């Protein structure tokens, strides 16, 4: 296996093989996803209900995690915010995986000039910071989740396409590909039915790792006030709104979304790294 997953430094170090950390993280990922899916039924209050009289309130029986500077219930906003905060990275990952796999397979399978064109142009994207690209696109197209998601998907595409290309290059040399060729299968059939399913675990591991980073990027964007519309609850946006609360000495409404972001990203990374390790062990 010559292809290596792109594991950015830092979080890559926290994977502890064989420890309960993986199960814990898997559980946390499951919990966050469940919260996001069931948000409308779980959130105790309307996340956008403003109650200025009760602003900066601490945890109470009615508001378990307190309220923010506008008196909005933090728990409800966290739970509802999980939807946008997960939906964005999901879009980034789905789009970058599909397009990246298509680009990588095409480049590796066809080779020649197509490989040169695709590989050079994806490297060009590598040279351009994804966040900057997203800011550029949002500033052109205005608010809305779609523009930053597409921009980040383009920025994450090279990680997937480069990995896929090297995997397919290795895979197409394996004799079974030839065996299918002499059975009369076309290149497209062999790619779709055999090569892609066989390399899928590695690509999915990479995409899971990408998910965490895309979540940070999107949270960063909405902290800057880009992308997510102002009234939509979103973790990055909540951190931004919480700045005022911190200045007034009620940091809870800013710290909780921060913690949610960090924990979710770490959990996705540990899970992704663990999958990557499992795939690597299988190939050895």
């Amino acid at each position, binding site marked *: 296996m010559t292809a290596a997953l792109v594991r950015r430094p830092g979080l890559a170090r926290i994977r502890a093989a064989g420890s309960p950390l993986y199960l814990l993280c898997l559980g946390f990922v499951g919990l966050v996803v469940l919260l996001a899916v069931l948000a409308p039924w779980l959130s105790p209050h309307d996340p956008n209900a403003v109650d200025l009289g009760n602003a900066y309130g601490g945890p109470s029986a009615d508001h378990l995690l307190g309220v923010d500077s506008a008196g909005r219930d933090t728990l409800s906003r966290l739970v509802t915010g999980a939807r946008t905060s997960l939906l964005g990275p999901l879009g980034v990952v789905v789009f970058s995986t599909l397009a990246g796999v298509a680009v990588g397979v095409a480049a590796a399978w066809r080779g020649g000039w197509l490989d040169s064109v695709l590989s050079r142009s994806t490297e060009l994207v590598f040279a351009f910071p994804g966040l900057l690209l997203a800011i550029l696109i949002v500033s052109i197209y205005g608010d809305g989740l779609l523009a930053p998601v597409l921009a980040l998907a383009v920025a994450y595409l090279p990680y997937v396409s480069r990995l896929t290309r090297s995997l397919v290059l290795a895979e197409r040399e394996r004799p079974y590909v030839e065996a299918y060729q002499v*059975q009369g299968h076309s290149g497209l*059939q062999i790619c779709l039915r055999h090569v892609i399913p066989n390399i899928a675990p590695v690509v999915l591991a990479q995409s899971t790792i990408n998910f965490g980073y895309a979540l940070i990027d999107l949270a960063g964007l909405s902290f800057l006030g880009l992308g997510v519309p102002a009234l939509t609850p979103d973790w990055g946006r909540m951190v931004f709104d919480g700045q005022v609360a911190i200045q007034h000495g009620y940091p809870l409404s800013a710290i909780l979304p921060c913690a949610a972001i960090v924990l979710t990203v770490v959990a996705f990374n540990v899970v992704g790294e663990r999958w990557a390790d499992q795939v690597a062990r299988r190939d050895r």
Partner: protein
Amino acid sequence: MNILDIQGLRLRLPDTARPVLDGVDLTVGAGETVALVGESGSGKTLTSRSVLRLLPAGAATEGAVRVAGQDVLAMNPAELRDLRTGTAAMVFQDPRSAINPLRRIGDFLTESLRLNAGTPEAEATARATEMLEAVGLTAAALRQYPGELSGGMLQRVMIAAALMGGPALILADEPTTALDVTTQAEVVALLGDLRERFGTGLLFVTHDLGLAAAISDRVYVMYAGRIAETGPAATLFERPRHPYTAALLAATPRLAAPQGRLAAIEGQPPSLQEELTGCPFAPRCPLATEVCTERMPERLPLPGDPAHWVACHHSDRLEGRTTDE
């Protein structure tokens, strides 16, 4: 009619000084077993692959490779696909690596019929069962993964897969090399049985002379991209008329007469980076004279034995000698 008819096949690769295959002529009749023998790098695998146009990148070909009368080298993609799906099939050297490890055997066997020939699933499965039984396995293998079968069983699966499309020609590229000796014998016996039962022509590529003698009707001996000698298996192995065949046979280890050191042919086959003017075997040949390095010997039938062709200036000097001397 010959099911396979290769005429004057030349194959050039981008960075070699001489053609890798240089004027190969080879025929396989319907229902005939033909062995193609040669050492590594002699071009025997390339020859068998060119029959399905499975050529390395950048290969330039001349000549004709006709399967059932149609020139493979001139086919369009659709015709080529029909050829690969139906008329001709290939059995690979190492079944372990030639079958996608993540798919069930049943999938592997029926996929080509279902996708390329449009056969309904039930019919394809019935045929797969029939073929598995023909190679001595049961329908239980359909549900198994390649990892659950032994090498010999997997090679049987490969052969069953080759038979699925009802081919008129099977190309077997060293199908027993990756197997142990007892399994080899089983697979060889199986190929013989199947040929009789289904009447398919078989081109058997091997470097094992004993195996070639045992299985084939006719033998082609290949050296440095050329056919050195061809003839009926019995006469060729008893009375070789090319010094290379004679040397190969002399180098075959014999259990009956332990002789100390094994005989070997001195020297190396010619490199692909040098042009050849004379006979490619001349530098290693005990009979070589001036004419051998100057002029390429033509392949001619022996007087009195029109089925036995030899490309050697001095084949008459081997006349009358047998391998038992």
